[in-house]
C-alpha cells in the first residue's frame, strides 16, 4: 500500500480517449489534449492520498447508521406511460424510438 499504487497516475491522451469511449463522450483532439493536462493536475493532487497507510481501515459504505432498508413488496400504480413518453425526444405511442444500433 502506498505511493506505488499511484505510479502512472498522470493520464495521457491515449488514456483520455479510452476513458471517453467508456463514458460515451466524444472529444475533439484539442479537447482530449486539454483534458489530459487538466486531469493530470487534478490526479496529481489526488495522488497525495496514497501517502496514507490505510490497509486495515474499512471503507465507508454509508455515513449514518442505516442498513438494509426494506419496504413491503406491494403493487402500486406506475407512472402513466404517455406522461413518461411525453418527455422523450422521439417516441411513438408505446415506446422510445432510437436510431439503429448499426452493424
Amino acid at each position, binding site marked *: 500500500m502506498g505511493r506505488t499504487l499511484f505510479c502512472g497516475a498522470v493520464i495521457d491522451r491515449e488514456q483520455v480517449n479510452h476513458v471517453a469511449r467508456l463514458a460515451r463522450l466524444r472529444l475533439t483532439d484539442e479537447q482530449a489534449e486539454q483534458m489530459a493536462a487538466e486531469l493530470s493536475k487534478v490526479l496529481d493532487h489526488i495522488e497525495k*492520498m496514497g501517502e496514507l497507510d490505510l490497509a486495515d481501515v474499512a471503507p*465507508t459504505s454509508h455515513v449514518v447508521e442505516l442498513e438494509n432498508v426494506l419496504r413491503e413488496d406491494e403493487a402500486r400504480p406506475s407512472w402513466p406511460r404517455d406522461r413518461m413518453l411525453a418527455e422523450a425526444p422521439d417516441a411513438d405511442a408505446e415506446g422510445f424510438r432510437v436510431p439503429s444500433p448499426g452493424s
Partner: protein
Amino acid sequence: MTSELLSLTAAQAAERTRAGDLDPRELWDLYRERAGADDLGAYLWLPDDAPEMDASGPLGGVPLAVKDLFCVEDVPSTSGSRILEGYRPPYTATSVRKLVDAGAPMLGKTNMDEFAMGSSNENSGYGPVKNPWDESRVPGGSSGGSAAAVAAGLAPWAIGTDTGGSIRQPAALCGIVGLKPTYGAVSRYGMIAFASSLDQCGPLTRDVTDAALLFGQMTGRDPCDSTSLDYPADPRLPSAERLDGLRFGVPKELLDTEGIEPGVRAVFDTTVKRIEELGATVEEIALPHSGHGLAAYYVLAPAEASANLARYDGVRFGIRAEAPDLLSMYEETRAQGFGDEVKRRIMLGTYALSSGYYDAYYGQAQKVRTKIADDFRAAFERVDLIVTPTSPTTAFPLGARTGDPLAMYLSDVLAVPMSLAGIPAISIPGGLADGLPVGVQLAGPAFSEFEICDAAYALERAIGFGDLPWK
C-alpha cells in the same frame, strides 16, 4: 411600504401574515416583480401566475426560490444543464412539496452550476450569476442563483443543495446564511442526482432564524428515499443569547490550509474572540485526515456522478443530437449537452472506477472518508462545535479560476470534510474584508442542526452583520 416589507426577514413576514397583519399576496407581488427585474442572472424560470395564497401554514405564505436542481411537476427543471433543456418533470421533489405544503409557494427556479458541479456558478449552461456585492465577481456555487437572489432581495429565502460546499460557500460569498443538514435528514427524492452519498438540500436565508424555520419543515423519512431518516428532534427556533458552557474546537489542519486570505483570517480571528466573549471556550483540535478531504472528495463525487449522469443519453428526456446509429447518438448528445466541467468530472470518475485503478482511487478514497468521519467523532468527544472559515477567500472575479480546475476545487477545501462525514454545518456572515462578505462555518455532530442554529444565532446577534447590498 415596499422597502419596509423588503426589510422583513422571512420569519418576520410569516409572523405578520399568520397574524392577519399582512396579505401574503402583497409579499408575492413585491418579490415576483423584483425577481422579474433580476439583472444578476439569478433566476432561470419564473411563473406567470400567482399561486393560491394561504398564510395559515408555519411558513406563512412567504415565497421561496428553488434551485433548478429540484424537480417540480410540469415546471422546467434542468439542473443548469443544456442536456435537460425543455424537461418538465412528471413529479415534484419531496422537499419542495413539503415546503409548499407548509405555506411557502415557489417563487421561481434559480440558476446554478451545471448538475451542481462548480464553486462559482460559471459552469451553468444558461450563463453565470453575478454577485450582488460586486457584479464583477462570482456569487460562489453551485447554489449561486439561490444565494444571489436572497442577498439581493430578489427572494425572501431559498433552498439549494450541498454536495461538497454548494450551500455554504455561496452563502459565505454572498453574505447570507446557508445550512447543510445531516446526510439523511432531508429526502433527496426529486433532487437531480450528482453524488448520491453526499447530496443534501438545505436553506439559504437572510438570517439564522429563517434557516431554522425552513429546515424544520424539510426533514423526515420519505418512503421514496431509503437513505432518509426520521429526524430525532422537534423543530424549534433559536433563542440563545449566550454560549456559556459550550466548547468550540478550531481544527489546526484546516486553519493551516494554504491560501486562506489574510482578510478572511482576520474576520475569523475576531469571530473566535466573540465566541469567547459570549462565554464559550475555544481550543485547538486535530482532524488529522482532513487535509486529504479534498482529494478523497474529488474521487468519490466524480465517481458517483459518472454513474448518475449515465442516464443522459438522448433517449428518455432532454435533448438528442441526430446521428446515424445508436452509439454515435449517445456520444454526440452527451458531447453537445454537457459543459466542460461536467465532462471533466465524468472523465475523472470513469477513470477512477475503471479496471486497474479502482482500489487505488475509489477504494482508498472510501477509506480516507472513514478516517475523516472517525476524526470528527473523536473531536466531538472533546468539543461541542467546530468553527472554521467557510471559504479560504472572499468572492473572486468572474473568470479568475475558470482556466484552472484545481484552483476552483480549492474553494471548497474547508467545506468538503463535513460533507464526507455526513455532518451538519452552517455558514453565517462574520464580517467584511475589503467590502466583501466573509463566512464563518459552525459544524456539529449528526442531527445537531438546532443546537448549531442556537449557537449561530447567539453569534449572529453579537456580530450584528445587518448588511445586504440593497440596503
